[in-house]
């Protein structure tokens, strides 16, 4: 209870297998990046869950504000022409 200086927080990302993206799996505390990697290996890959790990200091992440969700993401909703299903083509070439 005496140590007031908490280890910094890291976010952990794991590539579950070769060819897939790294995916956020959780977070942990560690004194530095090297130990963060080792701790991530110990807690997040005990059953072959991954082939590669990234750790990122949580403080280094810039996130979008949930308050701006509507202005950020709603405009995409009315641009249906961005999707292939918007276009009706003759049957002969419809697999395009």
């Amino acid at each position, binding site marked *: 209870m005496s140590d007031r200086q908490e280890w910094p927080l890291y976010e952990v990302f794991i590539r579950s297998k070769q060819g897939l993206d790294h995916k956020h799996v*959780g977070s942990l505390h560690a*004194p530095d990046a090297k130990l963060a990697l080792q701790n991530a290996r110990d807690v997040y890959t005990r059953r072959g869950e991954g082939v590669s790990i990234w750790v990122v200091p949580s403080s280094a992440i810039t996130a979008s504000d949930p308050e701006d969700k509507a202005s950020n993401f709603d405009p995409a909703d009315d641009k249906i022409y961005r999707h292939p299903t918007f276009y009706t083509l003759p049957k002969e070439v419809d697999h395009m």
Partner: protein
Amino acid sequence: MYTQSMDIPGQQPRAVAAAEQGAQEQEFEARIAADRKVEPRDWMPEAYRRTLVRQISQHAHSEVVGMLPEGNWLTRAPTLKRKAILMAKVQDEGGHGLYLYAAAETLGVSRDTLLDQLHSGKAKYSSIFNYPTVSWADIGAIGWLVDGAAIMNQIPLCRCSYGPYARAMIRVCKEESFHQRQGYEIMLALANGTPAQKRMAQDALDRWWWPVLAMFGPHDSDSQHSGQSMRWGIKRVSNDDLRQKFVDATVPQAELLGLTLPDPLLKWNAQRGHYDFGPIDWDDFWKVVNGDGPCNRERLATRVRAHAEGAWVREAAMAHAEKQRRKAHQEAA
């Protein structure tokens, strides 16, 4: 009216804030009603946040204190295989604690604060870990029954309305199933062993059965937080329903072992389609919850000692990291 719309500095923004809060609250309620997830930076009512911090941190504390009764047998496991298995299980429980503390931290509370609450006795952990593990059969009974009950409780939590808690639970549940299976396998070996071994298994079952049933918490009619938690989608299945489900699942498992559940009132009720069972000793449950179980003091003291004795490691690692950073900085300059 004029008197009420006097222009008092500071009043206007407050009124706006209240209106905004109203809109946020409506959005939160709508999200809960539509069964959509709440994420860390979304607006949430203070009581929702407090309830989650309390529940998730208690859950985390239980995983961590839960390592102690089993850790007690690591050096005395009967074979190398059993020792390796038990080590893996105890290590998993430490990991579960980590996932859960991390989920609680997304709600804006620090790990140190949560640990202080555990170590000062202010925060609770599951009452089940305040019972002693006096024989190897207890390790079997814990895996089979305690982890079995925990799984029953944790599966619905995978659908909890708070995203980080739900995701932590999915991870935990994946790891948890081997815990119950290895426990049952220990019981199986003992139940099929010598008469003395079988007696050992029965004795463990006799001691653990009732505390495990109490683990699901007070009856729905006496459970103070349950209603609101259900409305918020934090809790999905009531204490009594989970307990019943557990009893129904466990009776045939005990029969297969050739062991007897220590309840003379236990009986299949064809009308209900469930097993009836005898009354739980709630006085004993509350005694243990409130600090007077057989091992409360010992568990907490062991936990505090482990933390205190690890302090120098945490400080040294931090100092080393600091030094490396300074060195790298100097070399770059």
